[in-house]
């Protein structure tokens, strides 16, 4: 290893000094004293530089340069360079931090950073505005202590899906949408958005559909009434018989569509979860299936593999089962068969309707639950569908935390299965142990 030149010259200088002291000591006598004197001189020289260096570092001033060459000049220059670099870096980070802070502050969505205990670590201006948080007092408090809606507290424990909509704590008619996004090891980011306008538009739309359906129903009742009277009148010319009968059929269909529309808006505007009444499923399915048997359509078979009951809203469950069976019967030729199955699965229970009907093309499966979506418009209308059945099924199932799965092959048939979660299902064994 070779020494850098600045070190070599420093050592050479020191050696020169000591040798000179030795020669002088040998000449004048007392070489020990001369050597010690030279060493002291060197120490004093070094200390003086150290003192300057220390003072300069202490006072954040520029390190002064007293020499233009040699070890000390080099050391001072390098210290100065390091300090300039650090200063520039600090400035840069400072600017970056300010920019980040300004941009997150300008965001219209609120952001809150939570730690693993849901304590608030940081939040932006929009969050404090939307939730009424205070920068001075609320850091370190738990978010669920300040935003105490039971639904939200539940959601915060298990953040699943795409967030939750809660009432605004600051404005009586305001609504906020909160989504929790986990990141890092165990940090979480809560994004808060003001959805009051969306909610209002949604409500206006729903109210409009509901009101329009109600308003249309009364004139339709009058028309149906007169049509019925006309149809029963004995002295009607034969040429009018078939048009009147057709008008009656269409009026009936319109009534059905309106009834389904009203049902659908009711499902949409109701609270998130359906009530938990005890519903005897097998008792409900038997008469329901019987209604479809012996109508000249496909054969309908009921298979009850379990005697489990459901905790839900009776009218909605009936409408789920009825719509699914009705659909299957309508899209299955008279030579085919429909199987209705009620069975236990994975702790929960499954209601299944299996038909050998015309089936649905794969790319259309995701769309069949949209309202008024028809795979084959002509056929669907001819068989008396309203186009709302599956939309009703979907919404009613959501209110029971159940899931709808559709499997189908064109020309072979379809299977619609509704999977009800464990806590909505009551098995007879549960009932027995509850009594015991």
């Amino acid at each position, binding site marked *: 290893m070779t020494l850098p030149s600045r070190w070599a010259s420093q050592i050479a200088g020191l050696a020169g000094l000591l040798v000179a002291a030795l020669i002088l000591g040998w000449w004048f006598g007392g070489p020990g004293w001369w050597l010690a004197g030279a060493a002291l001189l060197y120490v004093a020289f070094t200390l003086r530089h150290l003192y300057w260096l220390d003072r300069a570092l202490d006072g954040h001033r520029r390190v002064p340069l007293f020499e233009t060459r040699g070890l000390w000049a080099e050391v001072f220059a390098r210290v100065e360079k390091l300090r300039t670099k650090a200063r520039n870096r600090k400035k840069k980070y400072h600017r970056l931090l300010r920019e980040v802070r300004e941009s997150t502050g300008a965001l219209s969505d609120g952001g809150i950073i939570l730690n693993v205990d849901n304590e608030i670590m940081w939040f932006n201006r929009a969050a404090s505005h939307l939730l009424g948080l205070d920068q001075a*007092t*609320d850091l370190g*408090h*738990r978010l*669920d*202590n*300040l935003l*105490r*809606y*039971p639904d939200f*507290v539940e959601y915060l424990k298990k953040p699943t899906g795409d967030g939750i909509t809660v*009432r605004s*704590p600051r404005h*009586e008619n305001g609504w906020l949408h909160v989504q929790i996004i986990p990141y890092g090891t165990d940090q979480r980011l809560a994004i808060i958005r003001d959805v009051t306008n969306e909610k209002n538009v949604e409500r206006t739309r729903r109210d409009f559909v509901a009101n329009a359906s109600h308003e249309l129903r009364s004139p339709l009742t009058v028309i149906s009434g007169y049509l019925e009277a006309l149809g029963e009148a004995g002295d009607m010319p034969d040429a009018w018989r078939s048009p009147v009968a057709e008008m009656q059929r269409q009026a009936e269909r319109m009534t059905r569509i309106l009834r389904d529309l009203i049902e659908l808006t009711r499902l949409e505007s109701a609270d998130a979860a359906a*009530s938990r009444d005890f519903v005897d499923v097998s008792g409900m399915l038997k008469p329901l299936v019987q209604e479809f048997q012996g109508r000249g359509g496909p054969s309908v078979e009921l298979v009850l593999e379990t005697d489990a009951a459901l905790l839900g809203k009776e009218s909605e469950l009936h409408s789920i089962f009825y719509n699914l069976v009705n659909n299957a019967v309508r899209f299955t030729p008279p030579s085919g068969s429909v199987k209705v199955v009620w069975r236990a699965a994975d702790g929960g229970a499954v209601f299944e309707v299996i038909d050998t009907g015309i089936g649905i093309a794969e790319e259309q499966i995701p769309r069949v639950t949209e309202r008024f979506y028809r795979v084959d418009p002509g056929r669907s209308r001819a068989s008396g569908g309203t186009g709302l059945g599956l939309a009703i099924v979907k919404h009613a199932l959501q209110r029971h935390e159940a899931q709808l799965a559709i499997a189908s092959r064109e020309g072979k048939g379809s299977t619609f299965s509704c999977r009800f979660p464990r806590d909505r299902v009551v098995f007879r064994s549960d009932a027995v142990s509850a009594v015991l």
Partner: protein
Amino acid sequence: MEVEDLGHHISRRFNEDLERVRNSVLSMGGLVEDQLDRAIKALSDGDSQLGLQVAEDDVKVNRMEVSIDEECSRILATRAPTAGDLRLVIAIIKTITDLERIGDEAEKIGVLAARLASVERPSTNYRELRNLARHVKQMVHGALNAFARLDTKGALEVVKADNAVDEEYESIYRQSITFMMEDPRTITRILDMTWMARALERIGDHAKNICEYVIFMVHGKDVRHIGVKNIEAEVEQGARRLESRT
């Protein structure tokens, strides 16, 4: 070294226990706020089903009170807390009693709302009651926020708001008497309305109590039955003491 570690461990567990029970008080508070909110909604929407649902859900509040009470007894028995910790536990025990009462009043409002839903509604759709309810809801919200933040200034605001609520109740009461004299056919409905106003006014009192416990918890001063002026003085004095300590 080992003994020290153990001691640290125990006190940390203790802190966790206290923190957990404090959090459950606040989730109970959230539940009570929700109950009150839905009871008022049942009144303004004339939704009898919602009103009855609220009445039914009161058992949830009661269940929480019992479980928090048990937890507090356990902490008192096993940890023997002192000073600030003891005040916290005492304040929690008292707070949950008041929260449970608020829950009961919400239940009452739910039942009354269900009953009022089936009779003819006044043209104002119970505007005075809804106004009173809004103020009371704000009080409960403020009281729980003060509890969460240990914010005595916020608690003081709620205590002050109680007077306005009492006045509002008085005016509804007087108004009801005139209505009943004018038209005796409305007596049943107006009596129900008065009961509801009474329940709301009581909720305001319970919210005020909770705020007094918050002041007790933070400053160690019992400020019950001493009047708003004196409470204000105590809060200021307490805040100064805290400042000088830090």
